[in-house]
């Protein structure tokens, strides 16, 4: 993106002044290098978002922003229903409630060498990954509906986890307001046998080592020290979320004109929050959030099983579970006034600062953990929400590195087998059913996550706590 198109507000904040149909400014958080590397389409898409009815304060782009369907990935926007605010299926994203869950293991780097191979094999055996994989369960209609209403709490009732897991999960593992009755049968059928599966593409399960601590007090509060081994799971609501996203996008696009909404891009499809289709989407989207939370909970159970087989003394506890594709009702300050807004975070992570009531009690004084995913060969980060983030971007931060290269380009540049051997040489074990899939997800196909988190910190969106590097990666 050309920096000349933007007004520089500070080292890591850029503004697009309202023009044309924009109702509010657009604000991009990034270093100059990240802005230059940013897809020019992000400009067009964030300007489109700023033109939507009922938008509050500004449309925001996080440092990892890149082109998405309708909304940019890394886009944040809040809407007030009292001002005709909208909800957008494209603004949540297709993989509803895709997110990251990080587990502490009680192990450290020295424990790993003798068990590494067998642990990689056990994880690959226990966690279904990739095309055509099936979960342990085949849900009946009744069970599906219960899962969609109760999320991870439902999974707990089946014995997949502990009460502490819920305490450390956003919404305590259950998103209120889900309406399984508005989730179509196609979406339900697609999910029936997919519970506890990882999926494919950029989804993964990683065993990681904490290689650096940036903020000792926060790290202590999160229970992490340098050298610790943790497990991170990145996946979402699988086929169900995607089917819901696809169908509502189609219906919202068809009905937009009837609500007087002019769509510059069909995939920006949205509807007034207070409309039959807007309310229906909210009920379905919340059901998909529960699906994702239940899915990550079941995967947690499977990870525990794999560890129990190989290293029974490991004790896996949830550090935190946070989604990065959602729309949630939250209270935020707008023009000095506390307001209930519907905040879309698409490829953006909620990042509440210290003392927010939604943060688990044990972490409340520190702030909310913000979990940033990496790719097979690169780092992941644990960040913490800040007070400043509330003022900057409705308490939101980045979510990961984001692709910089197409799958086709990646397969031209790397061979899967070769990449697996190369990573093994660096001490990273890959387990995947598909060599081509691994090549398509080559670490070099992604942007530099270090630059992204650094920019997030400089912009005051969140603060670095720890850097993690992968040692085992299970890919779909």
């Amino acid at each position, binding site marked *: 993106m050309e920096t000349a198109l933007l007004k520089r507000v500070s080292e890591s904040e850029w503004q697009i002044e309202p023009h044309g149909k924009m109702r509010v400014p657009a604000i991009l958080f990034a270093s100059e290098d990240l802005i230059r590397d940013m897809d020019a389409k992000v400009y067009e898409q964030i300007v489109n978002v700023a033109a939507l009815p009922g938008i509050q304060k500004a449309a925001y782009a996080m440092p990892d922003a890149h*082109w998405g369907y309708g909304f940019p990935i890394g886009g944040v926007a809040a809407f007030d229903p009292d001002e005709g605010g909208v909800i957008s299926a494209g603004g949540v994203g*297709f993989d509803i409630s895709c997110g990251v869950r990080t587990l502490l293991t009680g192990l450290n780097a020295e424990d790993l060498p003798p068990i590494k191979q067998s642990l990689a094999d056990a994880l690959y055996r226990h966690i279904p990954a990739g*095309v055509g994989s099936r979960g342990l369960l085949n849900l009946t209609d009744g069970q599906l509906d219960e899962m969609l209403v109760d999320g991870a709490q439902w999974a707990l009732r089946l014995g997949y986890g502990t009460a502490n897991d819920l305490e450390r999960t956003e919404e305590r593992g259950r998103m209120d307001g889900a309406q399984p009755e508005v989730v179509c049968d196609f979406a339900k059928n697609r999910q029936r046998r997919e519970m506890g599966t990882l999926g*494919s*593409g950029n989804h993964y399960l990683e065993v990681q080592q904490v290689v650096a601590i940036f903020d000792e007090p926060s790290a202590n509060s999160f229970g992490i020290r340098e050298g610790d081994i943790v497990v991170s799971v990145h996946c979402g609501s699988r086929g169900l979320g995607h*089917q819901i996203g696809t169908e509502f996008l*189609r219906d919202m696009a068809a009905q937009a004109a009837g609500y007087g909404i002019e769509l510059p891009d069909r995939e920006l499809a949205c509807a007034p929050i207070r409309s039959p289709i807007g309310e229906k989407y909210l009920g379905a989207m919340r059901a998909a959030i529960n699906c994702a939370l239940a899915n990550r909970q079941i995967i947690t159970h499977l990870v525990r099983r794999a560890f129990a087989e190989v290293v029974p003394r490991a004790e896996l506890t949830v550090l935190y579970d946070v989604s990065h594709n959602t729309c949630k009702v939250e209270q935020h300050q707008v023009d000095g006034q506390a307001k209930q807004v519907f905040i879309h975070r698409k490829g953006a992570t909620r990042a509440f600062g210290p003392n927010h009531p939604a943060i688990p009690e044990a972490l409340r004084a520190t702030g909310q953990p913000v979990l940033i995913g990496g790719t097979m060969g690169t780092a992941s980060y644990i960040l913490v929400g800040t007070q400043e983030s509330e003022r900057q971007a409705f308490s939101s931060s980045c979510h990961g590195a984001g692709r910089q290269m*197409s799958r086709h*380009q990646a397969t031209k540049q790397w061979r899967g087998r070769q990449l697996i051997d190369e990573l093994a040489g660096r001490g990273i074990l890959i387990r995947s059913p*598909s060599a081509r899939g691994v090549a398509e997800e080559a670490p070099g196909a992604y942007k530099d996550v270090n630059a992204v988190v650094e920019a997030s910190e400089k912009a005051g969106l969140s603060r670095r706590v720890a850097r993690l590097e992968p040692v085992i990666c299970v890919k779909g």
Partner: protein
Amino acid sequence: MKVCDLAQAQADFSPHWEHFTHGADIGVRGIGTTREEAFEQAAIALVAVITDPALVVSRQEIVVECQATDSEVLLVDWLNTLIYEMAVRGMVFGRFAVRLEGIRLHGRAWGEEVDVARHEPAVEVKGATYTSLLVGQNLDGSWVAQCVVDV
């Protein structure tokens, strides 16, 4: 669609498929002498995102029906229906037949259960999208049907 893409699409008249790049995403394009053929080829391009379509044996036939407001939305619906059928059946398709009556589609797909060892599926396609969506006829009379798919 970029002009160069269109020129490329026009160069070969016989039914075929190709992938195109849209930023970091992947597009599927079918080209044929009729709209039906273009839809069939777009479906093969969709499968080629997952696996080599030549590896898929036609053991089972599935019948699908779609209806939409226009030809372009119909393409998205056709591809999404195939994605759905593959997902719930645990199958992968390799061959297709399409009959169109205006904006109604009668389709048949042949394939088999996913065999991870043989098909080595690279990635799940989660849905067809409205991005770079186009169904149209070139000046030489050939038909193009294309869109970006989300993986």
